[in-house]
């Protein structure tokens, strides 16, 4: 079973890698957007899935990544910039994590929401008052297909990490933490350490996703890269698929992304209205996530089978 899983994964990865070869620029753009949300939703679920901390800080890290690229674009090679961006994301995550992971429930939600806003305000203030610039240009020659391949790599790393964590003792710990922190503590789990580590890893991945895509935009401003919609999209995609499962966020991100893209091109004037209705519908129709439907079907099939036997 395991080898089959790995094999399918590899085939899928190779398939995804050759996809851009057959399609044009718009296809590349679509692939970038899709892969970006696959990474974001999977990285989000890496931390929020098992711990059940609903984070709206996604765009804080995404923006930090993009903005780091904008600042360093003329000074370092792209690879080095990615390393710097990841490190900045890591530092911010550790700092924020140490301070906030003791907040529970809605307080964490709102804190994480406020965090993105605070980071944006501080960067804006620093740029305008200290640097006297705000918009920054990114003139890095990276093609859309290259961005896609980098994101694909990041996606493979993210899913690989999630798979590894799920099969390691860390996976036990995070699931236990999500259920009952007291039990986890008494079982010897350093709850704060584990949560912090997960938050940091998830944040670095999100930071990199932002950094990799930044060259696509040429011009970056805090208000452009700290767009809170990204946080909510990530959240809804991960929840739609089911954040507790390895493939859940992917299963949520792909159809939703294409749905939104379709809505945006077909109904540009009713875009917001339809988007809103889709959000509401998802909550009412698939409360446990798409992949949980598979479980339900299987349970039903099993029940039917048992009935047939009896």
């Amino acid at each position, binding site marked *: 079973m395991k080898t089959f899983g790995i094999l399918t994964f590899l085939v899928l990865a190779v398939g995804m890698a050759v996809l851009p070869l057959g399609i044009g620029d718009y296809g590349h753009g679509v692939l970038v957007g899709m892969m970006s949300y696959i990474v974001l939703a999977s990285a989000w679920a890496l931390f929020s899935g098992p711990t*059940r901390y*609903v984070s709206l800080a996604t765009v804080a890290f995404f923006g930090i990544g993009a903005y780091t690229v904008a600042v360093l674009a003329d000074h370092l090679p792209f690879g080095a910039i990615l390393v710097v961006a990841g490190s900045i994301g890591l530092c911010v995550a550790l700092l924020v994590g140490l*301070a*906030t992971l003791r*907040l529970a*429930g*809605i*307080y964490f*939600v*709102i*804190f994480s*929401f*406020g*965090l993105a*806003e*605070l980071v944006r*305000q*501080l960067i*804006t*203030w620093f740029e*305008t*008052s200290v640097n006297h610039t705000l918009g920054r240009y990114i003139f890095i020659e990276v093609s859309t297909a290259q961005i896609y391949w980098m994101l694909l790599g990041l996606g493979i790393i993210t899913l690989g990490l999630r798979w590894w964590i799920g099969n390691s003792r860390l996976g036990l710990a995070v699931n236990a933490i999500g259920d009952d922190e007291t039990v986890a503590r008494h079982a010897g789990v350093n709850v704060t350490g584990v949560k912090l580590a997960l938050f940091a890893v998830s944040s670095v991945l999100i930071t990199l996703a932002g950094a990799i895509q930044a060259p696509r935009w040429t011009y970056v401003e805090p208000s452009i890269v700290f767009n*809170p919609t990204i946080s*909510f999209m990530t*959240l*809804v995609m991960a*929840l739609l698929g089911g954040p507790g499962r390895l493939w859940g966020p992917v299963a949520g991100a792909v159809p939703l992304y294409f749905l939104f893209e379709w809505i945006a091109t077909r109904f540009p*004037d*009713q*875009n*917001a*209205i*339809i*988007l*809103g*209705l*889709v*959000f*509401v519908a*998802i*909550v*009412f129709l698939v*409360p446990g996530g798409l992949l949980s439907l598979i479980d339900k079907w299987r349970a039903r099939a099993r029940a039917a089978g048992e009935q047939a036997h009896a």
Partner: protein
Amino acid sequence: MFFSTLVIGLVLGGTYALIALGLTIQYGIARIMNLAYGEITIAGAFFVFLLVSSMGLSPLLGLVLVVPLGFALSWLLYGIVFHPLVKRASHAGQLEIDSILVTFGLMFLAQGLFTMFFGSEFAGYSWLQTPVNLLGAKIAAGRVLGLLIAVLIGGGLWLAMQRTRWGVNLRAVANHPEFAPLVGINRNSAARVAFGLGGAIAAAGGAVMSMYQPFTAVDGGFLTMKALVIVIMGGVGNLGGALMAGLMIGVVEAYVSYAIDPGLTLAATYTIFLGVLLWRPKGLFA
């Protein structure tokens, strides 16, 4: 400068406080995290704008009319959208995630509808722009009136919460919803009424805001965020806390703008907010 900055801050904080009041009721009593809250405010503002600009009616009349409308709209919304979610939620965390997602969707929906009906340009009208001198600060009469209305609604609400059976019941639900049935309170209808009440206040806040400030179809998110900050600072469900925190944020913004750097006003708000969350997550006035 010191006193006039204080006055400016208080006037600014008055609107914040009024808007936050409704949210603290919705979240504290009905236990719904309503991210579409600001959209109700904007709906109230558009309603009054429509009355004033196309029918030539007084904004004050608009304020009076918008309150029952805001109540009815939110009351219906609770029954149609949130009650099923409350019923199906297996634990508080589930309800919270569901309501965040649903209300985020409603936010989009409302913004789309506003844009469709009113366009996305600035809407506004001029009313009571005569200056009033308060301790050296010249403030628009409309704004001062806004502050007065905020104080009036806030104070009236506080009194009602203290003195009437209805208010005491709502406070009891806010305090320990699980014990409410023991004293004959139907939790569901109390939550519904509270949600409606919050919506009425939100709409009133929008009506007041429209009296001195132009607005657009997409301003709601910003208002929700401000209100959220204030609600958390004041303590969830704490009316007095929301009033105090609203005024406080207004004053802090005025002083930071005046004494430090206007570029840091919002950063200061969020820093204080995050500080409160970490230092006293139950709110400053718990």
